[in-house]
């Protein structure tokens, strides 16, 4: 069984960027979050395609030269999941 992350379809995610920070607003949940550049990069990745956690980690390392340590990626994904921006999908 595989576990993927994907964007929740059917809702808009509004963004406002100031320098390295972006506020995002999910029109479905009504939640607002402040993300740094890395958070936005992860959101962009998941919005573009369905990915496993490890694939996201690899993309970030390859494109942004940032090694996401410990559970920092899991925490960010969980936060985006909680606010309804992305969702976890399990496939057989």
């Amino acid at each position: 069984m595989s576990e993927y992350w994907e964007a929740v379809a059917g809702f808009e995610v509004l963004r406002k960027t100031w320098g390295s920070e972006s506020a995002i607003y999910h029109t479905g949940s009504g939640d607002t979050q402040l993300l740094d550049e890395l958070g936005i990069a992860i959101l962009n990745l998941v919005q573009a395609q369905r990915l496993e956690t490890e694939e996201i980690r690899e993309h970030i390392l390859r494109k942004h030269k940032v090694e996401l340590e410990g559970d920092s990626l899991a925490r960010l994904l969980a936060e985006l999941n909680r606010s309804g921006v992305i969702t976890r999908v399990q496939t057989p």
Partner: protein
Amino acid sequence: MILSSLTFHEARTRLKSNGLYFKTGPFTIHFNTHIENITKNFYKLYSENQIFEQEVFSDFHIKIDLPNNFRRWVRPQVFFYLDNEIPFKPLPFNQAYPMLEWGMNWCIANHSHQYLIIHAAVLEKNNKAIILPAEPGSGKSTLAAILTLNGWRLLSDELALISLKDLSAIPLSRPINLKNDSIDIIKSMSETCIFSDVYDDTNKGSVALLKTSNESVSRADEVAIPCFIIKPKYINESKASLARVSPGKMFMHVAENSFNYSVLGKEGFEVLSNLIDLCGCFDFIYGNNTEAVNIMNSLVANN
């Protein structure tokens, strides 16, 4: 016609009978009470507010009165009525006047979604408005009072009303709600300032309301353009410091201190984003009145 053009006796008679129609900021309120302490303080603090001779359309029909049961006599309580409904629990009789102010705040914050409403003070000088969003106990109202006593125009103490159309700050100049130590701090600044009674043992501690300047009330139709959003923090005898805050962090702070950001949904996000774009964002720590006034004066003079 303003409230002080009625004698106290006339105002009391109206409040007890058909009620009094008065204007505060963009709202018209129809108010009715039999409670003497409310009448006394209302007459003192709202003396410059416009009133209406005739029945007019009112945004809110408010009444504060004693109940018709034993709590009228035994440990008496007062009830707040909006359109003859009771929206929240009664308070002890000795908190009747603060209940009027808090009740009006509740009415406006819960019903006026034609504005983005932020828990913030708003003041203006040199045609530049500053918005002071903050949690209770941060020193927001103390700073608002200090600036008002030093020539700034008060647009709001508790509820910043931001137009969804053009981001202007809409005046809602009402008495400033001071708590605990800040009551004596402000009383010591001016012998001429007018206060309500002091109400002890409220859930906010001791509370007193400071009458705002006549100019702030008479210019109630003049909106102001927000230029700065400043998160204030009073620390006793601390040296003042004004430090830039990232727009993103201020966005989150204002959103958390807004009454209806989430009610407004997408529009709330867009309006708040545009408001942040319009303003410089700062953290402000202060502990000395003169220093605080000087820094705020130079901010609106230089930028």
